[in-house]
């Protein structure tokens, strides 16, 4: 295993130290509870936005803390959801009386830990108001009430951005949560890997792929995907990623979408630009209008090579919220 780290069990703590130094003045880090906060004090009467999850998906979530996006991000160990104490403390700290929205990716661990935090918060006297939106946009996983359901992937970036913009506008908790829910309901994602990742504590990749193979339907935790497929040209890979996405919602001719072509962590930007070209071509052929494209590494899986595509069907309000000013380590415009 080759990584720029000191020791496998110090990765998250060491990275948070560097993160704090790199974004000093814009974020504050509670190192004891591995939680990142906005440096500016929360505006009275605005809804707090707390998210979090296992580490290894950088810039998610800490990179999205700041004006117009998250109030706090709770960082778990690599690929391990944070614990209730982290979430509870963050929730309390960012509450200004207007309540707190918790954005949770749909993984059993994340859901249960956030749930326990919400239960504990509810037990407190004068308990604060909490809303939770669970994100589950990954079409690679079949959905059913019998299973853990779909994974939360690319939709998370959009939910954090758009709910964050709504919170920044001073809208009430119910509205902010409704935005996040609308994002999730209209979002679909699919991912693929050219090469697996190596979790630091495991020291080796979770699966292997031959030189002429790729893994389709992967998540963001280095787990094997739904199927191993023969390696294909980018144009073909884009088709394989988009087909299940388009069919699932379904997206239709005339739809306006936010589009993310996301790198898995070790995919060079030139390949992501190229993939976006293929995705744009296919969407144009389907009469789907990309209102806002986003291309880069936004929700990663350590050093996995590959990409994912997320589409969010967006009405004009969602597009407007996307355009609203944001000032975080990983997304920044309008200020």
């Amino acid at each position, binding site marked *: 295993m080759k990584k720029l780290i000191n020791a496998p069990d110090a990765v998250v703590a060491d990275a948070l130290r560097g993160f704090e130094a790199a974004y000093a003045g814009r974020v504050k880090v509670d190192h004891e509870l591995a939680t990142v906060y906005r440096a500016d004090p929360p505006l009275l009467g605005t809804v707090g936005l707390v998210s979090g999850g296992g580490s290894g998906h950088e810039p998610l979530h800490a990179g999205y803390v700041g004006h117009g996006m998250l109030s706090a991000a709770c960082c778990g160990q690599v690929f391990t959801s944070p614990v209730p104490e982290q979430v509870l403390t963050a929730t309390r700290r960012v509450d200004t009386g207007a309540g707190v929205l918790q954005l949770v990716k749909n993984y059993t661990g994340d859901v249960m830990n956030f749930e326990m935090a919400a239960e504990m918060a509810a037990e407190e006297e004068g308990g604060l108001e909490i809303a939770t939106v669970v994100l589950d946009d990954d079409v690679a996983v079949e959905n059913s009430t019998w299973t853990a359901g779909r994974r939360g992937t690319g939709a998370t970036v959009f939910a954090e951005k758009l709910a964050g913009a709504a919170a920044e506008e001073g809208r009430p908790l119910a509205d902010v949560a409704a935005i996040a829910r609308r994002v999730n309901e209209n979002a679909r994602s699919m991912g693929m890997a050219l090469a697996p990742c190596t979790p630091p504590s495991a020291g080796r990749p979770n699966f292997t792929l031959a030189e002429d193979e790729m893994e389709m339907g992967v998540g963001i935790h280095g787990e*094997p995907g*739904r199927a191993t497929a023969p390696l294909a040209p980018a144009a073909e890979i884009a088709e394989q990623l988009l087909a299940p996405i388009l069919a699932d919602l379904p997206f239709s001719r005339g739809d306006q979408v936010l589009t993310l072509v996301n790198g898995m962590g070790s995919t060079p930007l030139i390949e992501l630009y190229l993939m976006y070209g293929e995705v744009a071509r296919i969407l144009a052929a389907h009469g789907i209008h990309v209102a806002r494209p986003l291309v880069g590494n936004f929700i990663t899986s350590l050093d996995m090579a590959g990409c994912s595509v997320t589409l969010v069907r967006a009405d004009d309000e969602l597009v407007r919220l996307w355009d609203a000013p944001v000032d975080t380590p990983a997304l920044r415009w309008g200020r």
Partner: protein
Amino acid sequence: TSLTVEGLTRWLRTYATTIADHEEHLTELDAAIGDADHGTNMARGMTSVAALLDDQTFETLDVLAKKVGMALVSAVGGAAGPLYGTFWLRFAQPLAGLATADADQLSRALHAAVDGVRQRGKADVGDKTMLDALVPAVDAYDTAITQGADLPVALTRAAEAADAGCAATVPMVARKGRASYLGERSAGHQDPGATSAALLLRAAVK
């Protein structure tokens, strides 16, 4: 024969050692159908429990179990943290104020614990989770007690049933937890959580 505070402490210490010994194995199992952290997660949790046992002494079973549950909830994270945390938090409830538990009291504690896991995770037997080890273990324990076995024997039956339940997860297609994302591909692998659960019962009889 009954479970004392000292006995529970010994059980937990043994389990901490077992987990340390099996850390890599659990992570390997999790690598195949999950995200390769179950060993690390459990090791981090049981290290925290062992520290608790070093630092404090306990008068009653429930206080000890509750602290163990809280330690796991705050140290583990992931799926295993809330599930094993809930296990011990619920285990404590029927034992309120008791310094020792007889076989029936222990049965109630185990039932509460396993029901807690079931509720927290919204899973059940056959979903390829730790419940596939825990549920048969409690059933086997009850059967042994009903048949007049003493506590050590009943726990041995429980451990055997947990092992068998764990082995039975191999052919299963997962419906809960991360392994469910793999669909049919999850078959052919032993569930890591069922494995750590079977080790928990084994630790009780060591």
